[in-house]
């Protein structure tokens, strides 16, 4: 429970801290002591050097995820263009094979602006809520959101430019997203208009693909430029209230990524590729509290860390289903 509160606080912007000795489980303490022995250090170093010979980022999860984002969004487009009625609407609200789906954040914005609980909308909200309570809230971000995909491409360009030394990542304070969540909620309440929706690149992209409304795309272009040249993953990391909403919704989802301390060489490759590196703080040597630590609610389940990790120290896990070794 304490760790859940901690991880939610971290999602809201608190910086992760090194755990106090009493928070560390005996098993994790023993493992750490073992890892710090000179022999084990030497072995690890040698293994890391050997690993560099064939150092490559995997594409397994990224490939699956891109396919997922493209297929889901194409379903929206195809359903309208060919009138096949599989997934009608946009990501803000839709009908999937006749079942109502409603985006949690859009619904929240609408109800705040309208100052009324819309019963019809609650059905769609319920369906989506249950779905993401199971698969992990922010799975929406990395497996469904079209902006996430284009933002990943912008990130690739950004990292290339950083490597060349032409641009620098200007990090923001992560609590900015929490502040923006409150700002957008208050704006909706005060103005009676879903203010966030007018600048949400998620809704704009989703509608642009299906309905061809294109001018609002200019704003998405500006955002991407900011992410390429100024601040890595600016929107997803520091602004998007959708991410925070889903993070809250799926805070205790059974589908999650776990860190297997035993396999970890503490190289930090996972944190370098992660959208939300603060959730991977336990991968630093001496920062883990368990031998098997689930990654916090801000994790988008994107699997980039699995692709990056050369030692299999991170893996998907379904609470209660995955067999413990």
């Amino acid at each position, binding site marked *: 429970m304490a760790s859940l509160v901690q991880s939610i606080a971290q999602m809201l912007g608190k910086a992760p801290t090194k755990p106090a000795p009493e928070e560390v489980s005996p098993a994790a303490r023993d493992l750490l002591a073992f890892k710090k022995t000179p022999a084990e*250090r030497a072995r*690890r*170093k040698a293994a*890391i050097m050997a690993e560099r010979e064939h150092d490559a980022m995997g594409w397994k999860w990224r490939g699956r995820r891109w396919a997922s984002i493209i297929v889901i969004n194409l379903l929206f487009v195809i*359903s*309208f263009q060919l009138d096949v009625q599989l997934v*009608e*609407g*946009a990501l*803000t*609200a*839709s*009908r999937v094979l006749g079942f*109502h789906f*409603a985006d949690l954040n*859009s*619904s929240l914005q*609408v109800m705040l*602006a*309208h*100052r009324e609980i*819309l019963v*019809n*909308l609650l059905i*769609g909200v319920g369906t989506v809520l249950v779905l993401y309570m199971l698969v992990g809230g922010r799975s929406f971000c990395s497996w469904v959101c079209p902006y996430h995909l284009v933002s990943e491409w912008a990130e690739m360009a950004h990292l290339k430019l950083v490597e060349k030394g032409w641009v620098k990542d200007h*990090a923001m*304070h992560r*609590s*900015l997203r929490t502040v*923006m969540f409150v*700002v957008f909620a208050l*704006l909706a309440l005060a*103005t*009676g*208009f*879903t*203010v966030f*929706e*007018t*600048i949400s690149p998620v*809704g*704009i992209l989703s*509608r642009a693909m*299906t*309905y061809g*409304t*294109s*001018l*609002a795309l*200019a*704003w998405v272009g500006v955002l991407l430029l900011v992410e390429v040249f100024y*601040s890595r993953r600016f929107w997803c990391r*520091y*602004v998007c209230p959708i991410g925070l909403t889903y993070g809250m919704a799926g805070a205790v989802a059974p589908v999650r990524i776990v860190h297997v301390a035993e396999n970890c060489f*503490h*190289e*930090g490759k996972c944190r370098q590729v992660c959208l939300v590196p603060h959730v991977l703080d336990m991968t*630093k*040597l*001496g920062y883990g509290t368990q031998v098997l630590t689930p990654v916090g609610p801000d994790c988008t389940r994107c699997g980039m860390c699995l692709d990056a990790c050369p030692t299999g120290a991170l893996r998907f896990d379904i609470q209660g289903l995955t067999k413990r070794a």
Partner: protein
Amino acid sequence: MTIDGRNDKPARPAAEKRLTKGGEERRQILRSVVAGSAITCLALAGLLPQMAARANPRLRPPGAIFEEDFLAACIKCGQCVQVCPVEAIKLADATDGVGIGTPFINARDQACDFSCDATQCVLACPTEALTHKLTRKEEVTMGKARLAAPDKCLARAGKGFKGKARGADHGAMLRYEDIDRWTPLPIAEHDYDLSLCDLCVRECPIPGAIALEPLSAEAGDTRRTPVVKAGCVGCGVCEMMCPTDQPAIVIDVETGPRGVRRV
């Protein structure tokens, strides 16, 4: 605590000024405040189309609640767009000035002709921005037709109309019940030959919403004038069908009073 990891990258030139930790933190906060304010201002700029919509209201789909509430309740998903059999409903782009992503109808291009019978858009709406309390087309209150340019009206000049209502290139659809009860047809495929133009009355989907009445009491006077009755729901078919270059009859959009709930 050291982290086992790579340190084989060439070190950055030492000339680069290192900020103190506190300095970098302050910069980060400042940057965040600036970025947050910029995003907030931009979001507020999103209110401009809403104000424009108030100044220059557009037809909303049938069943739309009062404009103020509509702008709040619409979730901008476009499901109403998808079900419309005549594709009358469009989603607003940033420049349409009616709120990004909200549905509107340009009746002159393609009016709602109720060819779906059961107001499909209302059934598709997930948020009650189009009220589900509406069951019949006669209950719709999108607006009211008004004879805006009487001097353009052919009937008032006693003239007939021969040909396609809006020319051969116009893409609008309309349900011609006597031809096909179930499928709307292109109006460009329909030739009229009317001794006195009565397109606005003839094609009106609401019985008794509009009628042609004599312009004068004189016996030999063939001139007629369209009179909009109380039953008019503002669907805009008359505006779409009006064959003059500038429509003689247009729809005044019903936005409703501000701050008052329709439902």
